[in-house]
């Protein structure tokens, strides 16, 4: 009897131990001696002949489509570097940051992972991610003049600030936020098509078109088709010559007349002109679904929206953002995600090779744009075959103009702590509802946001 008991106890212990083991196993696999992240390791890994099998982990997020694309890209990488096996995990986007931070905290950082904005800043500062500069010299994939500067600069860190210094990441993509429009709807309404060249179309033209497109189809007093959705506040403010913050001095700059005017203009689209869905309408049916359903005329899209739009029953294209008639400037944002390599990676060279392959390899970049995921990171490819690619949108040049000309990094780029931005959006409801004018609101909120920013970022 006694022995039975201890056998059972043993079994319980074994189970517990097994669980512990499996929890650890994703950490450090195998032997690390040969390719241990010594950065002086010259020459491409592919040419470094006899190598042992190496396993690296890669974590990202994205749609199921994107996951498939990455599975394919990773296959090509593994063919090129046959000694490396990549363990790829794709996490739902909403949980990504949480998962990544938890992994970092528990010392199980993936070898390669997506990172951007506030988290990138934090990781770079804390030494969680590798300085990639020494590695860049070892690969023929990287030619600085063939990669968008606007994308690379996001991943530079000089020990204090973002934007300059060494590279701590490679861009996964550049995401110019372009103005898509329903061509069929425009033609039916007898409207002139918005031009692809920036400067020829102003906010007034945009509003005019939006008014003509907005319709109550069934006569119940409620709008069914809106002219335009999501005229982003960011874009409007930048086009007016204002900004949200000056990162060099750390001053929140929403209390300027330019800002107030831009914000009021955006708010009036809903309050005064009723050509855009309210935040609540947004919740019921987001602008993306509205555009796909033909219920909104103009809608800002990112390049990754393309595949979803290729099967639409109507014609569409992208236009340049309208300019503020007073300044003659346009504004929108360029998003980006980057690949970083964990500074604790036991196979830093292989990890870097993967990041470089995903970010810069010609074949991979080609596949990526053909599948409609992104604008190529490689400038020659973007300006050449990408622009000439025969799938919609026809005005692909617009994407490139935004990157080169009037796209800004999102506000949170440069903030380690984004509480101040969230607070701003939470409070912005008062302006969107028309309870407060933009000018009063901004004046009231500026000190509050300044305090929050200082607390979290200094």
């Amino acid at each position, binding site marked *: 009897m006694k022995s039975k*008991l201890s056998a059972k106890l043993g079994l319980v212990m074994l189970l517990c131990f097994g669980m512990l083991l499996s929890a650890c196993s994703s950490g450090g696999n195998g032997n690390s001696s040969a390719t241990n992240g010594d950065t002086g390791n010259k020459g491409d890994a592919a040419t470094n002949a006899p190598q042992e099998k190496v396993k690296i982990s890669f974590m990202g997020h994205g749609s199921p489509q994107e996951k498939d694309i990455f599975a394919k890209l990773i296959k090509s990488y593994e063919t090129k570097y046959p000694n490396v096996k990549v363990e790829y995990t794709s996490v739902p986007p909403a949980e990504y940051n949480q998962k990544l931070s938890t992994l970092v905290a528990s010392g199980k950082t993936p070898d390669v992972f997506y990172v951007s904005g506030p988290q990138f800043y934090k*990781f770079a500062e804390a030494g969680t991610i590798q300085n990639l500069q020494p590695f860049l010299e070892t690969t023929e994939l990287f030619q600085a003049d063939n990669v968008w500067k606007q994308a690379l600069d996001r991943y530079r860190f000089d020990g204090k600030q973002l934007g300059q210094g060494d590279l701590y990441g490679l861009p996964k993509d550049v995401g110019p936020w372009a103005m898509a429009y329903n061509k069929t709807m425009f033609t039916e309404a007898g409207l002139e098509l918005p031009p692809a060249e920036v400067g020829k179309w102003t906010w007034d033209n945009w509003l005019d078109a939006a008014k003509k497109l907005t319709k109550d189809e069934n006569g119940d007093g409620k709008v069914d088709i809106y002219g335009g959705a999501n005229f982003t506040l960011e874009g409007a403010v930048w086009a007016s010559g204002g900004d949200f913050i000056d990162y060099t001095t750390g001053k929140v700059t929403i209390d300027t007349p330019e800002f107030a005017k831009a914000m009021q203009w955006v708010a009036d689209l809903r309050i005064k002109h009723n050509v855009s869905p309210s935040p609540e309408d947004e919740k019921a049916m987001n602008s993306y679904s509205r555009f796909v359903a033909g219920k909104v005329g103009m809608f800002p899209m990112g390049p990754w929206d393309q595949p979803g739009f290729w099967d639409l029953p109507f014609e569409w294209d992208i236009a340049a953002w309208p300019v503020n008639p007073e300044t003659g400037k346009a504004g929108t944002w360029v998003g980006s995600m980057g690949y970083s390599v964990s500074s604790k990676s036991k196979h830093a060279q292989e990890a870097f090779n993967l990041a470089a392959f995903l970010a810069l390899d010609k074949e991979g970049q080609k596949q990526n744009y053909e599948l409609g995921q992104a604008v190529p990171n490689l400038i020659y490819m973007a300006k050449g075959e990408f622009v000439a690619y025969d799938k919609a949108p026809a005005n692909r040049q617009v994407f490139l103009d935004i990157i080169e000309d009037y796209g800004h990094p999102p506000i949170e780029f440069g903030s380690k702590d984004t*509480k101040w931005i969230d607070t701003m959006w939470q409070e912005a409801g008062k302006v969107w509802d028309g309870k407060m004018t933009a000018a009063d609101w901004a004046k009231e909120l500026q000190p509050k946001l300044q305090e929050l920013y200082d607390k979290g970022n200094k």
Partner: protein
Amino acid sequence: MRKSKPSYIRKEYAWAYLFVAAPVLGFLIFGVAPLLYSAWLSFTSWDLVTPPEFVGFDNYIEVFHDEKVYKSLFNTVFMMLGIPIGMIVALLLAIMMNRPLKGISFLRTIYYLPVISPIIAVSLLWQWILNQDFGLLNQTMWSWFGIEGPNWLGDANWIKPSMILMGVWGGVGGTMVLYLAGLQSISSSYYEAAEVDGASAFQKLRLITIPLLTNIHFFVIVMGVIGAFQSFSQIYVLAGDGGPEYSAATVVFYIFENAFKYFNMGYASSVAWVLGIIIFIVTLLQFRLSKKWVYND
């Protein structure tokens, strides 16, 4: 000479300890250890990336100066209005259900259904009901009475009532079952005696039913208050950004935001401890006060 216990008893003891050990160990590992860890964290500043840094009472000082702590605390307490409303509705329902009618068990099941539904599913359902333009509620009000409904989830003044409405709907079944059990334990002789004295139905309710259910009222209030202090999921689903002007955020939601959005683990822990202490004090007070009004057989 004392005889030692027979071996079969000793074996049973061993087994008993083994079985007791499982939950005790579980509690120590997954209950006490994190508790102590978070107590320590609440005195540090930790972003998960760099090692925790001891900051003394800074977090606690900050808690008392943080506008959002007060705002979320106010929201949480405001939403407790749902507790008395729910109790009244549940009691009335229980009285109605406490009859030998045909199909009554079917009705009881229907009212209990929301209680066992996952709160995320319930929240999504209500998101659809409460939508300003397309929602079931506003559509119905418009087509039946010609009333234009408010922007339930998008208006700072209406989002809290919306949450209360949803909470009452979701919780009333559970409270109803408790009241039903209570009602069935009241001896019918009280009512018979009251009838002989010529008491009206309302008098019977006020003087017999309600006082004899005080222990259930007490239980419902205590659990309701604790539950309300901890409410999170429905806010996360219906107002992922804390609602317009942060008017729907509860304390736990604020803790979540600090911990998993801004990665201020230390600060989140200190807010959590403050909340824990508040719940402890409020519950203690309720037990103290209960001696004055709860009737036990």
